[in-house]
């Protein structure tokens, strides 16, 4: 995949989350990691790239196709993508299975039987087959996050966008979820990942976009970013994160 933004701005009230953000990834990136300090705009950029948020100005280009700005077309476009958030984004009144089946039927036109088959196949793959009937509150944080990944994967999305998927998890559950993401990446799934897990990003990402205060400080191949970051903020950020690891 190839991701690109041109002078994108997005504000929440007075807060400027993306401040004329521009970057471009390599043409054949598979896993793009969005890195940077908290509040730097990673989550917002991820949502803009996935079409979940529409920017106030600027252009977002995915695989050389500019993303539409009209609500109708934007919704259609975003249905091609799968999203996983930091936490608590499953529907609490539905079982793990229903969480996956409902969007397949209501949005993607699956028949009930096909949707169930697809959902069970994914739950099995992610090690949740015994828990399919449980509601989110009955699942551990790691299981919830794997169910959320299953839901995002169910319609075979072009892009899988993960927004700090392990930030709310303890180290053991973090491991479970990262294993799943790595397997997906190795299986060829195109992934955009906003994360603080630097060592994980280093293992799976092939492109890094580094954001500070809503601006892209660096956008380069992952290897280069981790070996020889060019900007001072990136060097500080990496040094700060590796101090205790």
């Amino acid at each position, binding site marked *: 995949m190839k991701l690109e933004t041109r002078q994108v701005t997005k504000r929440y009230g007075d807060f400027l989350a993306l401040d004329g953000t521009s970057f471009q990834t390599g043409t054949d990136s598979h896993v793009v990691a969005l890195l940077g300090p908290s509040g730097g705009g990673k989550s917002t950029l991820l949502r803009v790239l996935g079409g979940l948020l529409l920017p106030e100005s600027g252009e977002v280009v995915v695989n050389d196709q500019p993303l539409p700005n009209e609500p109708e077309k934007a*919704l259609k476009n975003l249905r091609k993508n799968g999203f996983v*958030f930091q936490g608590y984004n499953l529907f609490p009144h539905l079982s793990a299975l229903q969480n996956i089946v409902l969007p397949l039927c209501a949005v993607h036109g699956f028949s009930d039987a096909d949707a169930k088959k697809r959902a069970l196949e994914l739950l099995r793959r992610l090690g949740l087959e015994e828990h399919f009937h449980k509601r989110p509150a009955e699942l551990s944080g790691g299981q919830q996050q794997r169910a959320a990944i299953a839901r995002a994967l169910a319609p075979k999305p072009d892009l899988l966008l993960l927004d700090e998927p392990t930030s709310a998890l303890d180290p053991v559950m973090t491991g479970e979820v990262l294993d799943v993401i790595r397997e997906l990446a190795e299986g060829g799934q195109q992934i955009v990942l906003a994360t603080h897990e630097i060592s994980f990003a280093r293992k799976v990402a092939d492109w890094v976009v580094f954001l500070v205060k809503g601006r892209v400080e660096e956008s380069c191949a992952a290897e280069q970013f981790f070996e020889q970051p060019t900007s001072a903020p990136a060097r500080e950020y990496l040094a700060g994160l590796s101090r205790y690891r």
Partner: protein
Amino acid sequence: MNPPSSRRLFWSFALLAVVSLGMYVTFAAVHYTWNWSSIWGYRSQFIWGWFTTLGISLGAMVVSIIVGFALMIGRRSSCTPLHLLSTGIVEVLRGSPLLVQLLLGYYIVATALYVGDPLIVGTVLLGCFEGAYLAEIFRGAIESISASQREAARAVGFDSAQTYRFVIIPQAVRRALPGTTGQMVSLIKDSSLLSVIGIEELVQKVRIMNSSSYTALEGYLPLAVAYLVVTIPLSWYARKLERRFAYET
């Protein structure tokens, strides 16, 4: 959360005994001579009144839910006149006494509209009054659904109608349930005010009964029981429903 049932049973009986004793002592202290036989003859009147109250309450419940839903949508609307109108209606209905609404609504508004049947007018007026409270209960429930749920709904590709249908309403119903049931219990009791526009519901029947049998208070004890027979099962059923919807703990 619940103590063992044997202990609950023990305490239920113990409290019942204490309360009964207290009531007996209180009633005995005033030396009122109860004359049950004279009102027994009016039992069919009483039962007729009870069914009238039930009928009005059921009708008004339906009206109140429709009115409550409509006012809630109006209150949440981004269309300014609609928002202001709904807010104004809610404030006036909640802020003024039901008695005034019934008298003005029946003798002025309904008369002007050539609607003469007090039963229909009373049911609609009661439904509107309670609907204003329901509107706020519904609104609170819907607005309590977190932004992350809305975002998750959009992320799986739901349009706004689907978001309401599959995500917000099912969760909001559960949160609105306790308040709504409480309001329904109030509605049943508030229906007693409909006597001011000449409807012979249960309370009015009991007043008639008391005066025509030359008794003062006999009718009021069965009256309380007749209300409790409806309101307690309603509360019980609501708790059962609530447990069925309890998935967040």
